[in-house]
């Protein structure tokens, strides 16, 4: 039964996401749409699976959802901060800095997620990765304590991502 399920739907998460995307696209919630969305969610991964030869082994969806809420909250709060900085801090008083985040994450997907989170949460932009992928280069817009920012990133995001991808 399980084998049959995985044979039919090798990527259940993706299928689900696609079905949801389909519903959003159609802007409509109906039985037909759901069925059709799932059909597409099965067919499309078949056709596109050549593009991801090595997907992450494990992924904890529930933790991911919790993580998402954290990030969304951070985005909202920090956006206001940055807006404040942009509007009030004169250019000459601005203290930008490079910070380097050593990575414990290994999966490309996880690192990408981390980098994306850093960029989306205001005040920081992930600019580059080290040539072997073990450090992340982050640019901070305005800070007096770069180390604190790094610590924040590591504890608040990377730690959670480590759990999600373990």
């Amino acid at each position, binding site marked *: 039964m399980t084998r049959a399920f995985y044979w039919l739907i090798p990527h259940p998460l993706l299928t689900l996401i696609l079905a949801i995307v389909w519903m959003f*696209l159609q802007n409509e919630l109906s039985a037909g749409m759901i069925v059709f969305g799932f059909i597409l969610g099965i067919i499309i991964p078949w056709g596109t699976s050549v593009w991801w030869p090595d997907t992450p082994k494990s992924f904890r969806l529930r933790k991911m959802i919790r993580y998402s809420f954290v990030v969304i909250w951070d985005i909202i709060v920090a956006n206001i901060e940055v807006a404040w900085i*942009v509007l009030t801090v004169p250019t000459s008083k601005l203290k930008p800095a490079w910070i380097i985040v050593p990575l414990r994450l290994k999966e490309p997907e996880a690192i990408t997620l981390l980098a994306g989170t850093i960029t989306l949460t205001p005040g920081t932009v992930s600019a580059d990765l080290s*040539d072997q992928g073990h450090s992340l280069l982050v640019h901070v817009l305005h800070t007096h304590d770069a180390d604190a920012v790094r610590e924040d990133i590591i504890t608040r995001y990377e730690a959670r991502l480590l759990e999600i991808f373990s």
Partner: protein
Amino acid sequence: MTPQIIGTYFVCLFLIIGSGFVLVGAIGLLKFNDPMTRLHAPTKVGTVGIGMLLLASVVHSFDIGEPSTHELLIMAFLFVTAPISANFIGKVNIHRRACDTPPDPPLDDTWSTLSVPESDRDG
């Protein structure tokens, strides 16, 4: 005060917040004098600004009786792609030496953008 009217006020609110953020993003882009700092403002302030506008659109659609949520999809795309753009522009700035050169990474030799094979270095 029908739900509709409340909705309309919410639409107004979101619109104004959104436009504020959009404006701030643009101001940041114009104001700062260093390419890397300029990168901050629009890539996310702008993103949130547009997100607010999308939210306004969702509320408005319920308001006018044609409920739609597909704007959320747009928001998702925006949030997924914005970091990539920012990443690339950051790389451009590093590559073009348009900003302070970042310190070397602790674990690896150098940053990916600066790791140019010897043969290509004087291209």
